[in-house]
């Protein structure tokens, strides 16, 4: 290796050492994620030993229950959790506020409105659900953005307006459900809590692709995103195209949330809590994306396991559990934020 090569290698090592804590935290989160995933594959109406599960995964044994029932659910828990975590991190960076997460500012509710419209007015195919959810989420984000964009962008104003819009959209959702035919209404309400019950591979391929692309976009632009935490002025004068970046971030955040909502319904609080957990664990400036994604995966998969176990054999919607856990977190966060203001 040339002398320059050695130097570069040394610098990389320095860079890595500075982020040793992040690496450590991410490794632990990955281990936790895999552990919870394995547990999810073992757990069900009948317990499968980890040995058997691994054999099925490796292809040396055959089990319809594990491969076609439990595996899609667990994969969805992990991937959707990561998507929600990143979506939350993107919005919290954008608003520079730990409360600025898509579920708090009404994007989940908007995506749900879209899905409700697809269910009640259209025929409710999965493609319609997906498209309508994304559209609903984008529409609400546009409304929130326009209402809060008076004389420049302010994260706090966006959060406060988002909370108000969330309340209005939630009321709209209830109204749609009340007006719907009984069968549709029951399906819609069951879905409203956010649940991974009964997802199978056919539901998942397209969402996984969409989420994959969005997460890749977020990863590529993450340095620019963190640059915006220096404030608008310094972000611009150090070379960030702020408006374009903001638009992209909104698209990524809404896209992730709405895609998850289209498949599993609005799963609250993962996007709110995961980025902050990731940030605190990693001790990093701003809200790093990778820890947020991993914490999201761990949270959603963990919550889904609890949802399945709590009243077994009845499987609760995971949204009920995430709301219960997240509600406590939100109260704590609100008292802390109010105390700071």
């Amino acid at each position: 290796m040339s002398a320059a090569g050695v130097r570069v290698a040394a610098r990389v090592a320095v860079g890595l050492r500075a982020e040793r804590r992040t690496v450590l935290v991410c490794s632990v989160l990955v281990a936790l994620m895999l552990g919870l995933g394995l547990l999810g594959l073992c757990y069900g109406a009948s317990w499968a030993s980890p040995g058997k599960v691994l054999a099925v995964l490796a292809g040396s044994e055959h089990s319809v229950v594990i491969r076609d029932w439990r595996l899609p659910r667990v994969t969805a828990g992990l991937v959707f959790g990561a998507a929600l975590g990143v979506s939350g991190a993107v919005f919290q960076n954008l608003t520079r506020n730990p409360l600025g997460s898509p579920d708090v500012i009404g994007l989940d509710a908007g995506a749900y409105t879209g899905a409700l419209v697809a269910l009640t007015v259209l025929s409710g195919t999965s493609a319609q659900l997906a498209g309508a959810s994304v559209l609903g989420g984008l529409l609400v984000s546009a409304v929130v953005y326009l209402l809060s964009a008076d004389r420049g962008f302010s994260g706090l104003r966006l959060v406060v307006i988002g909370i108000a819009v969330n309340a209005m959209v939630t009321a709209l959702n209830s109204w749609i459900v009340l007006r719907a035919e009984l069968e549709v209404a029951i399906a819609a309400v069951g879905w409203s809590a956010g649940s991974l019950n009964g997802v199978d591979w056919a539901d998942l391929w397209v969402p996984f692709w969409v989420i994959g692309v969005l997460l890749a976009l977020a990863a590529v632009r993450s340095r620019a995103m963190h640059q915006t935490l220096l404030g608008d002025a310094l972000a611009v004068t150090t070379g960030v195209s702020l408006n374009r970046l903001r638009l992209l971030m909104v698209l990524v955040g809404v896209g992730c949330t709405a895609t998850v909502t289209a498949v599993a319904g609005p799963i609250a609080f993962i996007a709110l809590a995961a980025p902050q957990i990731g940030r605190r664990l990693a001790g990093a400036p701003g809200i790093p994306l990778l820890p947020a994604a991993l914490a999201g995966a761990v949270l959603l998969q963990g919550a889904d396991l609890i949802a399945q176990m709590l009243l077994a054999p009845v499987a609760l919607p995971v949204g009920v559990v995430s709301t219960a856990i997240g509600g406590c977190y939100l109260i704590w966060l609100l008292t802390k934020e109010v105390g700071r203001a």
Partner: protein
Amino acid sequence: MSARLTAREITLRYGDRVVSTRLSLDVPDGAFTAVVGPNACGKSTLLRAFVRLLRPDDGRVELDGREVGGYPSKALAKQLGFLPQDPVSPDDIKVRQLVARGRFPHQSLLTVWSAGEEDAVEEAMDAAGVSGLAGRPVRELSGGQRQRVWIAMVLAQRTPYLLLDEPTSFLDITHQYQLLALLARLRDQGRTVVAVLHDINQACRFADHLVAMRDGRVVAEGKPADIVDAALMKDVFDLPSVIVPDPVTGTPMVVPTLQGE
């Protein structure tokens, strides 16, 4: 006197309030320019227009004959470094990490960890005298240390231009002079420095080119010794004063004649 960075007949507005109308200014290359004037006279607004944070309603701000708004973001960020009056640091950021943020316009996904990057950060911290603080969290620093860290961040950007909005406010007097001396050194190394300053005597001592503003207009500009007199102080600041030579540098020193009862 050549000038790559110029404002031509620009009209600047914040919301409904017109700050400057048809203002023109050349920033002399390689010099230390100080902009002085009473509060709300449009000094900061002018600076923000130079770094394309504010788009003029009318007229043009140009670098090398090309409108600053027409440059690609990163290309302009390699030319003009800017420090706002009250920059915000991300929570939990360390000094070295903050200084490294100045490298953003020079980096692509592939070069984040190249050797040159690390050298630029070290050099900037050295020049601003904050190398000893590299591992400290920014929020634990004193105001003077923090300001030097921000200067280091802008230095890491390695731009030929440094534009600073009241860099000495919130610093104690020693740190003020140290910072101004640092800016003068940077000028000696060939950079063009533009700073909005509050203290007219400091401006006279350190600046090559003084720009006095009032009500969004440039009232006078030139070498401090050529333009600073009692009449100008009355015009710009409404301050009765006598001007004496600074006993240390011989530059003009403004001594107000207002006294307590």
